[in-house]
C-alpha cells in the first residue's frame, strides 16, 4: 500500500517525466584521461623502416611493416600498420620508436632514453648460407642451442641467441658466421659509401701511375684511414663499431677503375653505342669523349670494344689489418688477352 502511495505521489509530481526524457549517460563515462593509451597512432611520413616496433611488440601479428608500391614520383613509403584485433595497447612500440618526431604515438609518450633499449645486444648473429660448409661445429658449441638445422640450412634462433660469440670462434670458414649490427642500418650504409667513394677518388687521383702501369705490374699504396676517420665518427659515434664496419667492408671490397688518356684517344666513337647505360658521349665543342662517372657501371665493355687499347681497366683490392692504413693493390686487367686467346 505504501509503495502504491509513493508511486501515485511520484506520478503526480511529474518529476519522472523530466528524468525519463533526459535519461542518458553522463559524458564522463566516455571521457578518456590524458594518459589513456589507445591504439597507437601512426604518422607515416616519419617512418624510417627500422623495424624496432615489430621486434619489441609482445603480441604476435599486431604490427606489420608494409611498403607502398613505387610510383612515378618516387619510392613507395614504408610504415607500420597496427592490427587492432591483436594490439594490446601497451604502448611499447611508441616507447622504442627511434624517430624524431615519433612515428608511433600511444597515450602520453614514455621515458625514452638510449639506455633502456629493447635489443639487449648490438649484434645479430647470422649464418651466411652461401659460405657455410654445414660442419655444425657452431651447433655443438652453442651454449643455449640457438642454432638448428631447418631445411638443410643452419639457422640462428634470434630469441634464444645470447650473443656470446662462441660460434664465430669455432667457425672454420671466415665469414660464414656473421655478427652484424642490427641497429642504424642506414648509417652503416652511409659509412660504407663514404669509405668506397674516398678510396675510388684516391685511386683516380693517381692518374699518372695508372697510365704508366705495365701489363703485369702492380701498384701498391698505403691509404691512411685517419683522413676519413673524423667524418666516419660523425656518422657512427662508436669507434669500435665504426672500425669493424669499415674493416669488414674494405676487406671484401673490389673496386674497378676505368681510365683513359684523352690525348691518345683516336675519337673513333666506337665505344659510345656499345655503352649499356649511355654514359659515354662525344663533346663536339671540345672534341673529346666524355664519360659520366656517376652513371658508369664499370662493366668494361668500352675497354673490350676500344680497338686501340686506349681505355684501360684496373682492379683494386684492399685490406685493413692494423686499423690505420688501408693497403691498396691496383692491377691492370688482362681481359683483352683472354678474349684474343679464344
Amino acid at each position, binding site marked *: 500500500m505504501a509503495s502504491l502511495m509513493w508511486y501515485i505521489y511520484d506520478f503526480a509530481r511529474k518529476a519522472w517525466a523530466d528524468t525519463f526524457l533526459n535519461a542518458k549517460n553522463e559524458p564522463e563515462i566516455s571521457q578518456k*584521461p590524458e*594518459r*589513456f*593509451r589507445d591504439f597507437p597512432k601512426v604518422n607515416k611520413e616519419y617512418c624510417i623502416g627500422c623495424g624496432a616496433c615489430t621486434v*619489441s611488440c*609482445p*603480441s604476435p601479428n599486431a604490427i606489420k611493416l608494409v611498403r607502398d608500391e613505387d610510383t612515378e614520383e618516387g619510392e613507395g613509403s614504408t610504415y607500420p600498420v597496427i592490427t587492432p584485433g591483436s594490439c*594490446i*595497447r*601497451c*604502448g*611499447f612500440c611508441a*616507447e622504442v620508436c627511434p624517430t624524431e618526431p615519433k612515428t608511433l604515438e600511444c*597515450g*602520453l609518450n*614514455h*621515458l625514452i*632514453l638510449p*639506455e*633502456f633499449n*629493447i635489443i*639487449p*645486444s648490438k649484434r645479430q648473429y647470422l649464418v651466411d648460407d652461401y659460405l657455410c660448409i654445414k660442419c655444425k661445429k657452431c651447433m655443438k658449441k652453442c651454449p*643455449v642451442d640457438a642454432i638448428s638445422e631447418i631445411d638443410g640450412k643452419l639457422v640462428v634462433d634470434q*630469441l*634464444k641467441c*645470447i*650473443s656470446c660469440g662462441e660460434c664465430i670462434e669455432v667457425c672454420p670458414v671466415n665469414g660464414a658466421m656473421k655478427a652484424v649490427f642490427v641497429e642504424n642500418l642506414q648509417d652503416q650504409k652511409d659509412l660504407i659509401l663514404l669509405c668506397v667513394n674516398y678510396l675510388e677518388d684516391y685511386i683516380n687521383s693517381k692518374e699518372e701511375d695508372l697510365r704508366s702501369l705495365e701489363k703485369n705490374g702492380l701498384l701498391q699504396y698505403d691509404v691512411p684511414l685517419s683522413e676519413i676517420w673524423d667524418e666516419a665518427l660523425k656518422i657512427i659515434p662508436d669507434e669500435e663499431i665504426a672500425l669493424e664496419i669499415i674493416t669488414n667492408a674494405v676487406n671484401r671490397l673490389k673496386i674497378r677503375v676505368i681510365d683513359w688518356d684523352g690525348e691518345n684517344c683516336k675519337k673513333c666513337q666506337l665505344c659510345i653505342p656499345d655503352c649499356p647505360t649511355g654514359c659515354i658521349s662525344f663533346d663536339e665543342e671540345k672534341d673529346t669523349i666524355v664519360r659520366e662517372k656517376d652513371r658508369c657501371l664499370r662493366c668494361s665493355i668500352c675497354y673490350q670494344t676500344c680497338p686501340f687499347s686506349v681505355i684501360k681497366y684496373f682492379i683494386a683490392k684492399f685490406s685493413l689489418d692494423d686499423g690505420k692504413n688501408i693497403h691498396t693493390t691496383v692491377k691492370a686487367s688482362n681481359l683483352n688477352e683472354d678474349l684474343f686467346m679464344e
Partner: protein
Amino acid sequence: MIVPIGPIHPALKEPIRLKLQTEGERVVKAELEYGYVHRGIEKIMEGKTWQKAIYLSERVCGICSYEHTQTFAETIEQISDVDVPLRAQFLRVITNELDRIQSHLLGNSTFFKSMDHETLFMRVLEMREYAMDSIELLTGNRVNMGWNVVGGVRMDADERHFEPILKNLEIIENEFERTRALFAEGPALALRCKGIGVMTKKEAIKGRAVGPIGRASGIKEDYRVGHYTYDDHFDFKVIRRTEGDNYARTLTRFDEIPESISLIRQAIENIPEGEVRTPVDLKSGYAMRQNEAPRGEVTYMIETNGPLIKNISIRTPSIANMDSCAKYMIRDVPTVADAVATYATSDPCVACAERVAITNEAGKTTIKYLDEVI
C-alpha cells in the same frame, strides 16, 4: 545427490565446475574441476626477454594484474642486483594499493551478487569505479596497466595526478562507511553470513589459505610486512579476524580498504623527488620472490640466462584459497545457494589458478605443463 554447477552458470563469472554433494538441502561436500582456462603462459615466456614477458605476466590474471608485474620486475631486479629509485617504489605502492582496493571491492560485490543483494552490489561496484578511474588516470589503462618495468616504473606522476586520486579516495571513504555499516549491521545479511562456511585456523594452515581468506581465519600472514618499501617507509595494520566464516572474510576485505587508503595517502604525502627508472644491467641467475597480491601471496621463481628467461614458475594465491574453500568451507552448508555464496567469498580467480603442479609418488612436487601430462 550431486549438483554440478558450471562451467557456464548464472552463479559463476568464470568457467569452473563446482560439484556439490547434497544430503537433502544441506551441502556436505564440494569438489572443483579446473582446466578450462589453461593457456600455458609460463611456457610462452621461456626464451623471451623480460620486455615481452612482463606483458604476459600481466595477463596471468586480469583482476590483480598489477601485483604480477611488480613481483616479476622485483624478481629480475633481485637477480640483477638493482636498487629501484625510491620515487618508483612509492609509485608502485600507490598503484598496488589502488589495485587492492578495486580487487577487494570487486570480490565483495561478487559475493553480494551471489547473495542476491542488489543494493550492496551496485553500491560497491560504484565505489570501485572511482578506484578504476584513479588507476586509469595514473597508468593509462584500466585493467592491464603496463606500468611496471624492470628498474622502476614507466612514467612519472605529479600533482595533476595525485590530486584527483586523493579526491577519488575521499569519495570512496565517504561511501565506504555507510556500505560497511549496511553489511556489518544488517540483520538479514548477518543471518546468511555468520557461521556459514566456517574454516578454523588449523584447517586454514592445512589448506594453505593465504591473503584475506587466511587472515579471516586467524592466520597472521601478510607479505607486505617483509617487503622493503613497506617496512622502511610505511605504517599499516594487518587486519585479522578469528571467526573464519563468510562474514569474517567479507569484513576482512572491507577493513583492508581504509588501510590501503591510508597507505596511498602516506605515499603521496612523503613521495621523494628523483628518477623513476634506472638502467638495468641484466645478469644470469635464479631468484624467488613473494609479494602480497589482493588475494594473497604470489610467488615468482625465475631463472635467467643473460637477458632471456630460461625457466619460470608462478604460484598464485587463488589455487590455495579455492582448494581450501572446496575442502573446508563447503563442508556443512545449509543450502546450495549458501554454498555458492561461500565459494564467492573465497574470492576465486580461475585465470590465476590454472597453473599445473603434479605430485609424484615420492611426494616431490614437480611443475609440468599440460601437454606433457595428458
